[in-house]
């Protein structure tokens, strides 16, 4: 087998067969996290730099644990306390990091496209941990893995994503991936939170949540950022919750086997509440567990072998 990609920038760059390869390989890596000794020597001697220009707990920790379980050395740099605060540009910072010869850089950056630009000039692997409103590919892969683990397949699943689609890289990456894998995707949001050009994504769009609930196999709630209220994109938490929040009444209208997902962090009381976030239908913590395994798979594929053949 040959993995043709040095980097992972977005789901848009992956073929359906490649997504399938990643999902098929992941149980082997998940098994490692269930052992007493949660470590294999696979990436011994490799250096992974985690470069986070935006707040992150889950993704950063997940990447770091994944790298460590494969025996890679990790160094994490966040914006505060680093030279970025002194006004160094991303490009200069990257060149300096490159001079220390790491094997992989995991980057989160607030602007779309920067990660792809860096990947073009960097000889090492670059993994996108979220770039602006563009993509968050490892999140989409762990979401697809969690769905496939639960339902056995992605083909024919009806996945409904609800929330701030316009500013969500999670929704974009999932929409690209799920449609490639043969799932039916419906995006639900108020008109102001739908992205321009959504018609070209190959998905269904609805401004009303209630009508799509009974046919959904997966309902994925997306975090609504309160700062969007200041931009007048919706008028308030409570109004948003009443139209688009997942509450007990809405949960009761879901199919018997349907599950609730959320990429985190959750705004309890806005897009989701205690009844639904903590219900047995929620597979939110499975998503987190699977995140480590998915990131181990990607580190293995991008760093594990030679890319010359």
């Amino acid at each position, binding site marked *: *087998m*040959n*993995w043709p990609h040095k980097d992972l920038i977005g789901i848009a760059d992956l073929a359906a067969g490649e997504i399938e390869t990643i999902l098929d*390989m992941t*149980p*082997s*890596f998940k*098994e*490692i996290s269930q*052992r*007493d*000794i949660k*470590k*294999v*020597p*696979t990436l011994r001697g490799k250096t992974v730099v985690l470069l986070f220009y935006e707040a992150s707990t889950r993704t950063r920790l997940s990447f770091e644990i994944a790298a460590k379980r*494969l025996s890679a050395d990790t160094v994490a740099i966040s914006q505060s306390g680093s030279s970025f605060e002194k006004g160094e540009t991303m490009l200069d910072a990257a060149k300096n990091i490159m001079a220390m010869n790491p094997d992989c850089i995991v980057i989160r950056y607030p602007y779309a496209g920067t990660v792809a630009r860096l990947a073009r000039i960097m000889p090492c692997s670059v993994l996108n941990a979220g770039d602006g409103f563009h993509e968050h590919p490892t999140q989409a892969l762990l979401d697809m893995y969690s769905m496939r683990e639960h339902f056995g397949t992605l083909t024919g699943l009806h996945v409904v994503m609800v929330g701030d689609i316009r500013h969500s890289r999670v929704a974009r990456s999932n929409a690209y991936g799920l449609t490639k894998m043969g799932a039916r995707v419906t995006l639900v949001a108020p008109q102001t939170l739908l992205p321009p050009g959504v018609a070209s994504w190959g998905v269904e769009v609805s401004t009303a949540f209630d009508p799509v609930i009974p046919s959904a196999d997966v309902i994925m709630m997306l975090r609504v950022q309160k700062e969007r209220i200041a931009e007048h994109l919706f008028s308030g938490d409570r109004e948003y919750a009443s139209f688009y929040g997942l509450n007990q009444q809405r949960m009761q209208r879901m199919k018997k086997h349907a599950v609730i997902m959320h990429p985190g962090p959750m705004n309890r009381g806005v897009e989701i509440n205690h009844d639904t976030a903590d219900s047995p239908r929620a597979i939110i913590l499975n998503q987190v567990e699977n995140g480590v395994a998915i990131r181990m798979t990607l580190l*293995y*594929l991008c760093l*594990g*072998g*030679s890319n010359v*053949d």
Partner: protein
Amino acid sequence: MTTQTLNPREIQTLLRKLVRGLTQRFTRWDDVVFIGIRSGGEYIARHLVRLLEAKTGASLPLGVLDIALYRDDLSKRLYPEVRPTEIPFDVSNKIVILVDDVINTGRTVRAAIEHIIDLGRPRRIYLLTLFDRGGRELPIQPDFVGRVVGLTPDKVLKILIPEDETALGEVLISEVKR
């Protein structure tokens, strides 16, 4: 290209010889577990365990090890496909019979031992292989061997696993590498 073939009956004879060796060494089977290295070792281990169970009446645990993540040549080759390790028992304090189809450099066995030790601390690990083709690069020797065939590196020894894995396949020994 000349090819030498061993038919399934000859393989069966080798397996019976290994079974005799094991029953001479072990009288109690309570703590003995078998672990086959994917995929040739798994196939041989299944046949071996079936024969042993028929002979001894004991029920013998069998696990499968995937060593892809423990290889020492990752950066020199294409990515080996990784499949899950399936060991449905605790190896701690057990007598492990590690099974592979062929031993050559010994590097696969080194990786397998490292993997087993990550899962627990066995009392002892024995190594059983159907063939020993020589060419060792590490100080590792099997405790039980079906047949020693000294082969130069340009020769291929291949065990053909039939579609029905409960049947025994043929063994090809050919002069030229694929």
